[in-house]
């Protein structure tokens, strides 16, 4: 009996955290998968096991494909740009420049603001006629433009907002990583005659790879996870042109109350995220040097 005491104590210590995790993460995840095989219960008709029917419906659902396509465009539009911008800003504010603290603060501000506030600021920018963009445009004689009301521009508008919001956040990680790189390395390279670009390409960038991997995984997850601005700015419209996958799940689950189908959509989203994250680790891990 005495032999098991430390074990019991250990498990007891883990219990509170384990209960919370199971209750709010693991059980819902498993339940989602389970529910995705059932039809949605409707007045008087209980949920029935329907196997893969929800998934079959999904294949024929044009809005699902539209949301998936939108999300792919959204991810490709936001991830590379926000990471590149973050790196550029970090390199800039890492240098010895005047007003460095103010610049860092300025770049980081969008991250601190709540998304709902950000969305409202940008709503004003995009407003046709008297919004900031149209006002600036009118100085150069450009016509009015309904940025968020147009199928062709609405997704691009959301991409710009997201890049603006995310880049500052990623910059902080790059900045922290840059400060870990000893300035002596730069001096050693200078003695050898390496220019700034050569030094960045052969030393700085490879040394930042762990950060890049981390930021990339986060950026991918965020591109599927961030929908606050869709809710606040477009509600997926016009004509689903700005519907992202998670927003569509929200619509299906909590506005149309088709919980079974929403569960199936969620499972697909989780699988996509898992595959992407795994792929990034497997492909990039080999090229990453950890200190």
């Amino acid at each position: 009996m005495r032999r098991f005491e430390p074990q019991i104590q250990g498990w007891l210590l883990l219990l509170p955290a384990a209960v919370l995790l199971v209750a709010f993460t693991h059980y819902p995840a498993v339940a989602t998968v389970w529910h995705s095989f059932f039809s949605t219960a409707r007045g008087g008709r209980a949920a029935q096991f329907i196997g893969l029917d929800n998934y079959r419906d999904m294949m024929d659902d044009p809005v699902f494909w539209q949301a998936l396509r939108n999300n792919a465009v959204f991810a490709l539009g936001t991830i590379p740009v926000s990471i590149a911008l973050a790196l550029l800003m970090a390199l800039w504010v890492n240098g010895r420049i005047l007003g460095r603290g103010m610049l860092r603060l300025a770049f980081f501000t969008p991250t601190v603001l709540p998304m709902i506030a950000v969305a409202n600021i940008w709503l004003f920018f995009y407003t046709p006629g008297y919004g900031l963009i149209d006002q600036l445009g009118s100085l150069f004689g450009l016509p009015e433009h309904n940025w968020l009301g147009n199928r062709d521009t609405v997704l691009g508008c959301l991409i710009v907002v997201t890049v603006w919001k995310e880049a500052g956040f990623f910059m902080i990680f790059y900045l922290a990583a840059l400060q870990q790189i000893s300035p002596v390395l730069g001096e050693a390279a200078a003695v050898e005659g390496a220019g700034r670009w050569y030094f960045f390409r052969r030393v700085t960038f490879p040394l930042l790879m762990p950060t890049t991997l981390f930021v990339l995984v986060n950026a991918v997850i965020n591109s599927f996870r961030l929908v606050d601005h869709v809710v606040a700015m477009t509600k997926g419209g016009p004509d689903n042109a700005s519907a992202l996958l998670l927003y569509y799940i929200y619509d299906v689950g909590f506005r149309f109350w088709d919980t079974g189908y929403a569960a199936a959509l969620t499972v697909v989203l989780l699988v996509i995220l898992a595959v992407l994250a795994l792929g990034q680790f497997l492909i990039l891990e080999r090229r990453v040097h950890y200190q």
Partner: protein
Amino acid sequence: MSAVAVEEVTKQWGETRAVDGVSFTAAAGSLVVLLGPSGCGKSTTLRLIAGLEAASAGRIRIAGRDVTHLPPARRGIAMVFQSYALFPHLTVAENILFGLRVRKVPAAERRRRLAKVAGLLGLERLLERKPAQLSGGQQQRVALGRAIIAEAPVCLMDEPLSNLDAQLRHEMRREIRALQQKLGMTMLYVTHDQSEAMSMADQVILLRGGRIEQDAAPAALYDRPATAFAARFIGTPPMNILRSADAGVLLGIRPEDIVLAERGDVAARIGAIEYLGADSTVTCMLGGETVLARVQGRVGLPAGAAVRLSWPRERVHLFDAATGRRLDDTMSPPPAAAQELGERVAAAAGG
């Protein structure tokens, strides 16, 4: 023609002068050590020569060429940093070849030079490793390899051995000296360790507060220190500097020149004995002053015992109390000075 010539170089940050009008030359193929306590400006001087800092005033020539305003890469120098500054993500071979790649040296030539340098430093079997997989001494060799593969005429070293343990430091000292002589490099070597300076250098430049205290060969630095500071900085234990009755003069006696004897000029009391094996350092109380004596082997006297001390008069150094500068550059010390010290101490003991 000297390989490196530093002319009236000053480096100023606001009000502080880290380097203050320093001038010296280093002969081609010689090893010159910049020596001094921390904050004396020796590293800054080296960084000015490397071009990593810009001089506020003065000129620097390397191989006769004025390089004062040239970037580091165009000065014809290689450098070894205190922290080695190896690129952590590159292998040993890539680290050593870094500069050659930058300068676009052809691959065949790179391979030839890498093989040569790896052979010289015994790195052949470590070429594919990353710096983190090497010991401190091996990292040091890689840093050395990166410096010598450039085949630059001047090699600058900033406290290259200070991160190694004592044993390894000794070995590397000899090895660096041998390498420098074999390759005929001019080497400027910064250290705060006087024994490193004494054992390696052709020429030692002792710095203090951004100025040159003395610029001389190791033997000259030891035998005829130009100032009381130089006298105390070189040698372990340091030279005894005693006040004399003549307030303007300081007396300096090296511990190994003091003899403990039955008969001697001065009465003293033993304070402590530090036994070191080959010799012992004896702390003697001489009135109010403390004098260190270095005697061979063991001392068979207890602490507190009365002894008499003597020293050859010609081994006494005299310094100006106000400026610290050596007074007796040509004449031998006046006999009165040593005599007078004994009398003064006797008086102090009696009173």
